[in-house]
């Protein structure tokens, strides 16, 4: 189960919009893949502000954020 969001290469603030949409739909855990540190910080801040927990895994120059409730 869960949902995967591929936000690689998207301009600000689209990764945040996609991740927020996934959070509002539920279906945790949500795995968001981003490829800039800025997107990683932005998605993490948004998810934490929405009361979620966020784990980050670095993979090469990409990041996977695992968002759980």
């Amino acid at each position, binding site marked *: 189960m869960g949902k995967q969001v591929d936000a690689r290469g*998207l301009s600000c*603030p689209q990764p945040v919009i996609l991740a927020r949409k996934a959070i509002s739909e539920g279906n945790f855990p949500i795995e968001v893949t981003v490829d800039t540190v800025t997107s990683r910080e932005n998605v993490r801040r948004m998810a934490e*502000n929405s009361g979620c927990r966020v784990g980050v895994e670095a993979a090469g120059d990409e990041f996977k954020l695992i968002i759980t409730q």
Partner: protein
Amino acid sequence: MRNRITLFFASRPGIILAGAVIGIIAVLLQKAGNPPNMGVCVACFERDIAGALGLHRAAAVQYIRPEIIGFMLGSLVAALLFREFKARGGSAPIVRFTLGILAMIGALAFLGCPWRALLRLAGGDLNAIVGLAGLSAGIFIGVLFLKNGYTLGRSSKTYASVGWIMPLIMVLLFLLLVFRPKFGEVGALFFSEKGPGSMHAPVVLSLLGGLLIGFLAQRTRFCTMGSLRDIMLMKDFHLASGVAALLISAAIVNFTLGAVRFGFSPQPIAHSAHVWNFLGMALAGLSFTLAGGCPGRQLFLAGEGDGDAAIFALGMIVGAGISHNLNLAGKPDGIIEGVATTGGLSAEGMVAVVAGLAVCIAIGFSMREKW
């Protein structure tokens, strides 16, 4: 250590500190010679660079501004130090170029980018409130598009050399500034002898100020457009706290220096044609939102290897040429021999601003993905 610094700059105190430092540097650069309420203005300074290169021939606004060079190179240094330099590009470059042109046409109708709008307000220029209201309106329209799936598509990772092109252009500009070669009898470079282009802080101070701002802004992702967009989109005040810090610190330094004068007209390098201040900044705000960053942010992104942001910045420089050559830019109010004269926008300028808004709206509607 590196991680700790990164965490600090990503925090609320980090961005407030960066904003405050930017505000102080900006006013000090005014004190050191930059034009009034124009300590740093990305649009104005790119316009001056366009003028120095002869892309327009408005004699009063021609100078290679080291602040712009510093912005990008400061960001480059920060990105390299923190291993964030990443060459990327290929997300609708022609659209970004067009948005850059339109953003500049809008900003020059108002006579300043969002950065200068804040500095104008900090100096008591109440027209800036009208401009900032227009900016908010433009961003609001952009946010509606974003909520409805607007996207320029993905960028992709590319050769490192792609990311170096724009920073190297900045190095070249700096060499042109220092050595001032003359290209032919009547050719560029051009440096204003009077008017705003002739007013500048010493090169070293401008460059250092720009480098420091570029470094801080890259670390904190400082963005004037983003501050309002994030509030509208998700009630996130993170970026806004940095922008507020800029405004407050610039106002405090101005008060300390006795450089605040409240009113609408005459204000330095400003006009009080309210409708066009509003619509000009609305066009700029919408263009920035559709392109994903304010003009400063686009320079910082270009410094960390984003070729799409570089294209937007080049679009703004070309847009400055178009704006002045076609008589689209706003004219400041002034006092000529004791008589107050009213500036504002030419008929061509008004048409361009309205047409620009129409083009942006067409872009917003036609480039959507179903999410």
